[in-house]
């Protein structure tokens, strides 16, 4: 019971962070929000009793945030020059 309510709250948070990340105008900020999104997703996976997936998602989200950050830095290079 609590589990279900908790999960739906978590999903709501995921939804909101994800939407903000997508619609935030600033690129770097949305990258950061995206990492928050990933964190909540990891929580949700844990809640769904899938620790294996959660673990994978955790390490992968680190990597993908790193990808995003690197890429965003590369993308902004041209704008500054």
């Amino acid at each position: 019971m609590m589990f279900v309510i908790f999960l739906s709250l978590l999903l709501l948070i995921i939804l909101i962070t994800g939407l903000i990340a997508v619609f935030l105008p600033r690129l770097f900020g949305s990258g950061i929000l995206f990492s928050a999104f990933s964190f909540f997703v990891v929580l949700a996976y844990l809640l769904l009793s899938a620790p294996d997936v959660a673990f994978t998602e955790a390490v992968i989200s680190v990597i993908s945030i790193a990808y995003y950050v690197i890429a965003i830095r590369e993308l902004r290079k041209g704008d500054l020059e």
Partner: protein
Amino acid sequence: MKQKHSSIILEVAYRLLIPVLIVFGVYVLIHGEYSPGGGFQAGVILALAVILNRVLEPADVKKNYWTYKTIALAGMGPVIYMMTGLLSIPFGGHFLEYGLLPLPVHEVERHLYGILFIEVGVTLGVMATIISIFDSLGKVGDPDERGNLL
């Protein structure tokens, strides 16, 4: 490049993190059967360690990283996997039938060893792949050509 403007504390923390990550990665790899984790996660963690190292390097060194060797290594990991799988064929089994691997141990244990081999391969492959994608993200953007990847 004004690479050095990041704080000392952060850099030291990064450097401390690297050996921890490596150890943790190997632990995850070995302990895959008993707890969450396995070859894939181990590979990602090891790759993370390498990437942290890369982040700390100055930019001009980084340019030389996009080498073919990483990709070659990325290929070799799955090759280990598949060779393990293929090894059971000459001994009368199907592909990936670890029970028939030529190891001097009991059949159940052979399964575990077989899976370990495979996990090592996966780790290697994942690690090298992630690093090579990371490197390529830094490299492809060099403003030299007409944007031609080839």
